């Protein structure tokens, strides 16, 4: 056994010394890292890609490392080079740098997608060894790797449930829920806990939806012109102010909270299912520090969102669908108070699937973990859902 270990070390050392240095392939990697928008650098990147692939398996580790300073486009160039090299190596029985791939996989400072790719490569070489690593990934910063570990825990929880070991099952699924970042897994765990184990789950808190808002509306959106119209809340938010709304009616800000599992802020609740209107929602978020986060919005109406008075993004699409994290918007929060203003526009369509005038918003880190306001209030008690009414 000791001899095998020594042999392994020797092979690892040999392989490491046969690898090209980062500098030797760095020009090709830099060229690929330089690809930009609208096709910038494509031709040069194609040449560099070809050079990397012709070099063979020794480029795998440098390419994985280079993903740390690569754009999403450049990461794809690097990924496909790595996978082309692996495909070629397999067809020619060439050796792959297994130890280096494993080492890269285990180093949590690596780029999350690159580490997930490293896991897939490692699993394709030694599936059993890769599977043994999975439980240790339960708190991994790479969503793809964490997903594997959460999936294992869900499986274990289900198995315990099938054996009627309800307490152990609940404990296992609670651990899975705490670790889960991806929506489908959170939903699956919550369903098991609620329906099969009769447990309570604070799903809005788990997701980190913003639940307390101030709403004002309706402003006019006839002919969808309201999307581009600058109404007073876009210039400054004064929660004590009154405005002239649609049809010259005086409108004021009002408190609003939601206990919806998916944090849905529903303008139809205070205003009814009216059409060709604009509403605004305002809230504040206390950040413990200056930090990069993602605003994750779902909305099937046309919308705009401002952070601290600055327009982040807007989109004039109506009733094509809504889902959690439909739009992911990277922003930087100030330390302390931050303001969020959402504009949601309802159009003229009258089909029953166009009644919704709503959005959902959460603040997350780049892995999908909820980032909480330091003064986050408890989830409100659920209230009876409003009756669904047809469009007026």
């Amino acid at each position, binding site marked *: 056994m000791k001899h095998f270990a020594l042999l392994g070390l020797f092979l690892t050392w040999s392989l490491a010394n046969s690898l090209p240095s980062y500098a030797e392939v760095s020009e090709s990697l830099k060229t690929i890292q330089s*690809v930009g*928008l*609208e*096709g910038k650098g*494509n*031709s040069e*990147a*194609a040449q560099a*890609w*070809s050079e990397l*692939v*012709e070099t063979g398996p020794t480029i795998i580790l440098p390419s994985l490392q280079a993903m740390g300073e690569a754009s*999403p*486009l450049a*990461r*794809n*160039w690097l*990924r*496909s*080079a790595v*996978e*082309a090299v692996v*495909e070629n190596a397999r067809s020619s029985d060439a050796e792959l740098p297994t130890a280096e791939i494993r080492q890269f996989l285990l180093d949590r400072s690596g780029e999350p*997608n690159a580490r997930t790719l490293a896991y897939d490569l490692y699993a394709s070489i030694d599936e059993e060894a890769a599977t043994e690593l999975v439980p240790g990934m339960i708190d991994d910063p790479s969503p793809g790797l964490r*997903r594997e570990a959460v999936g294992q825990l869900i499986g274990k929880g289900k198995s315990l449930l099938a054996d009627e070991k309800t307490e152990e099952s609940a404990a296992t699924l609670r651990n899975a829920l705490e670790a889960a970042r*991806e929506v*489908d897994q959170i939903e699956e765990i919550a369903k098991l806990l609620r329906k099969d184990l009769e447990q309570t789950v604070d799903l809005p808190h788990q997701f980190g939806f913003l639940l307390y808002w101030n709403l004002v509306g309706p402003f006019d959106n006839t002919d969808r012109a309201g999307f581009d119209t600058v109404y007073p809340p876009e210039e400054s938010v004064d929660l004590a102010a009154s405005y002239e709304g649609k049809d010259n009616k005086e409108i004021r800000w009002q408190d609003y909270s939601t206990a919806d599992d998916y944090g849905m802020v529903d303008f139809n609740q205070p205003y009814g299912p009216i059409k060709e209107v604009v509403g605004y929602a305002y809230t504040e978020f206390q950040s413990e520090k200056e930090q990069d986060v993602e605003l994750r919005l779902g909305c*099937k109406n046309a919308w705009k969102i401002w952070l601290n008075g600055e327009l982040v*993004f807007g*989109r*004039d*699409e*109506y009733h*094509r*669908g*809504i*889902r959690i994290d*439909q*739009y992911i918007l990277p922003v930087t929060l100030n330390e302390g108070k931050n303001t969020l203003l959402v504009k949601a526009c309802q159009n003229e369509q009258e089909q029953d699937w166009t009644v919704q005038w709503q959005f959902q918003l959460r603040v997350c880190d780049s892995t999908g973990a909820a980032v909480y306001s330091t003064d986050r209030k408890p989830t409100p008690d659920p209230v009876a859902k409003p009756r669904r009414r047809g469009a007026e």
Partner: protein
Amino acid sequence: MKRLLSLLVFFALAGSAARADWLNFRGPQGSGRALDASSLPKELSDETLAWKVSLPGRGLGSPILIGDRVVVTAASGPDQKQLHILCFRASDGSPLWERKFWATGRTMAHKKTNVAAPTPASDGERIFALYSSNDLICVDLEGNLLWMRGLTLDYPNASNSLGMASSPLVAGDTLIAQVENDSESFAAGFDVATGINKWKMDRPKAANWTSPTVLEVGDDEIVALQSSKGVVGILPDTGSALFEFGNGASTIPSSAAVGDQLYVPSGGLTALTISSDGSDPESEWNESAQRPGTASPIVLDEKVFVINNAGVLNCANRETGERLWRVRLEPPFSGSPVAGSDSLIYIFNEGGLGQVVDVSGEEGKTISTYDLGETILSTPSLDTDALYIRSDGHLWKFAQP
């Protein structure tokens, strides 16, 4: 050495590429008819099933055929963020290569459709794979990456929350794609060698799932872009508008082109004749009863066919639009019909039932059905002697034994 090998492979493939390449959605002119497909199986059956292979993810896009290569795309993973381009050997279905990418654009889509909804395109040397996420990827026939565009990175509001589905095609040395939606709606022509925009034009701000078709007018190729507003004919190299038909058109079934004639799903079906002098297209006829459902129309010789939402195949006189006969098929259909040189129409319904309809006589007759047992939302592709179809889980080839 490797480059030399690649070159030899290319010339070998180029030789065989003269057979009956099917290089984009609905093949020649984007119209579903391959006149050089002369030895297709007349029945779909266990006997004519040549092979089937598993796919790693769903997709609605058709396979494309380049020499002895079959290329198909797929999307997989919890949010369909894994994009695949897969290449198989046509003769035996053996895998040749696979490339995978992470989607850079939005992957949200209605659950019925999929991120791999558009059919890839090829110019015989390169493969262009477009996805609902607006990732546009070009590889050569060996799978070497030549260029990549993230069109949602370039144009952040270009997306459709129901999913995009328009398929690109190549005309001359330009790849043309319609990226049309409610917000940042455009069409563009890309240099096939570099992926750089040759032109980009604003398009109607409305969701549109139709694909471009190619008209052959004299020695010119004119690309027809269909939308809710109608049809615009453009020169592929510059995007310059050559003609406009403004009577509105469907946003789901695409037009069928035959030479300089265009059969547009507009007010039912409208037949147009296009000239190269920039004059307005001449409307030959409009027939409201010839209203296609999801499937696009197809023209065989002197007959034009549409399948309506009830699954009825309508045959009309191509010259006049007059209905000749109707026959009920087994619906529902998301894919479109295709045909080779004989008078057989091939189509698969959503339940996976393949249907072969003989349309040579005075009325249509279904002569063969075959249940693949899997969801099929796609359109078949034709070689000279074979039919390829992709289901949710597999790629299938049918040929004469």
